């Protein structure tokens, strides 16, 4: 075989591989490498691809008469082993099945990261048309791929209004907690690395921990996941989460979580270093977007001192000496 005839055969093999509906991901880079290797490679591929797709070929094939009995006629290229030939269809099916899985042009795990600073939230519209309202001091990483939609709440709180799609699931991860939906509106509040609260405002969601489905939540219900344990919450009222109007309804929530929420609306850092205070269970309805009002409410109900400095706000157990 001449050198050029060999190139043409190699090129023809590429054309066959590339014109299949599903192509292995590894084929792409290998094809480009082959194309880069020689100008003649590129010329032949261009000609063959044009030939393979041409109307003239379709016409010629349509007019070509198939000889009777062609299907069983022995071919020039046959398998040497009859045993192999009998097994061939199974091998062929397996070979083809292996090609299914990865599409040729895969977006290389494109992730978009959205961040808000403390003080004010923002709304974003994702690539699939879903809307996310982010609270302050929130970070969200989003991946919209042809076969799945996923978001990771790195910190903060967000309300998701997910556009309904029949097959593409939307998954939100917050630590080990995950929420899976097809189309609905729900709120995810990452209160700490091991504490996440979920409330559903429309539709239903599946709440899972570490990959296991734990609970299906319907409209109006919420769940709290603390250290991997899920507990259902009482029915909520209203069509939008409290935080959107600047409120937070706490029931037995650690003071640290409440202060983080107040922090989401305050550009001034709020310091809460005392461990016992951080864990102090709090209940009540707090106007978290109004920093002073929220902290006053805490001060009135619990035994704490709040010192407003020029750059920071410090919260300490009541009666402790000001050591500044």
């Amino acid at each position: 075989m001449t050198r050029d005839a060999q190139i043409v055969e190699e090129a023809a093999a590429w054309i066959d591989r590339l014109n299949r509906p599903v192509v292995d991901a590894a084929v792409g880079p290998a094809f480009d490498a082959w194309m880069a290797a020689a100008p003649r490679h590129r010329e032949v591929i261009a000609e063959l691809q044009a030939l393979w797709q041409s109307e003239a070929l379709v016409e010629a094939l349509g007019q070509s008469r198939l000889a009777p009995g062609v299907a069983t006629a022995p071919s020039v290229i046959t398998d040497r082993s009859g045993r192999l030939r009998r097994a061939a269809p199974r091998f062929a099916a397996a070979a083809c099945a292996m090609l299914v899985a990865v599409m040729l042009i895969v977006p290389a795990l494109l992730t978009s990261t959205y961040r808000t600073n403390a003080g004010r939230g923002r709304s974003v519209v994702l690539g699939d048309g879903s809307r996310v309202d982010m609270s302050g001091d929130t970070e969200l990483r989003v991946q919209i791929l042809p076969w799945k939609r996923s978001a990771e709440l790195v910190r903060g709180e967000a309300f998701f209004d997910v556009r309904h799609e029949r097959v593409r699931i939307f998954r939100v991860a917050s630590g080990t907690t995950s929420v899976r939906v097809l189309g609905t509106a729900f709120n995810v509040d990452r209160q700490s690395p091991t504490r996440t609260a979920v409330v559903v405002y429309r539709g239903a969601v599946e709440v899972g921990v570490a990959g296991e489905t734990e609970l299906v939540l319907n409209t109006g219900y919420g769940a709290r996941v603390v250290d991997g344990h899920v507990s259902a919450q009482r029915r909520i009222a209203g069509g939008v989460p409290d935080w959107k109007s600047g409120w937070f309804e706490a029931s037995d929530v650690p003071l640290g979580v409440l202060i983080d929420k107040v922090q989401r609306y305050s550009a001034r850092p709020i310091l809460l270093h005392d461990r016992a205070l951080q864990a102090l269970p709090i209940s009540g309805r707090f106007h978290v977007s109004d920093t002073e009002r929220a902290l006053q409410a805490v001060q009135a109900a619990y035994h704490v001192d709040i010192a407003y400095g020029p750059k920071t706000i410090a919260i300490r157990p009541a009666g402790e000496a000001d050591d500044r």
Partner: protein
Amino acid sequence: MPAVLHQIENRAGDAPAEDWRAIAATLRRYVRARTSRADVVEDVVQETLSRLVHQGRVQKLLSVYALGFRIAANLLIDHHRRDSRYVAESGEETASLAPSPHRVLAGRQEVAILKEALAAMPPLRRDVLVRRRLHGQSCAAIAKELGLSAKAVEKHITRGLADLHKAMPGDTAAREAVR
């Protein structure tokens, strides 16, 4: 402090420097082989290149060439649709927009050459090509129906395509050169 929304694109590094001249030349050759209209050729090539550059910025491309062929093929279909709609809308007055006699002749000639090459092939190989290209059958389906291995089916397609290519009048000079 005003709230700032950052959108950061995390990419696995920028695409390696492509040889755009080689890509352009390849696309031009491909498009020229598919249409006889010189104005369409440059349009399609330029548009394909610009889309490739854009796509390459948005995501890492697994194969620039494969995507290039696909984009160009779609653009050719768009051009074709636009042209046929134009001809249909403007009726018979625009006879000049109909395919030129030269183009029709070239098309006929092409079909005749390909038919001849197909007739010269082993019947099984021709059958495999008809099933694959005309009926769009998968390699597995062809292998099963003809009692062949997947490898043999691939071989038939590869050899058949090479035979067809050989029959087409091309630049044999370039082919001789690499011997």
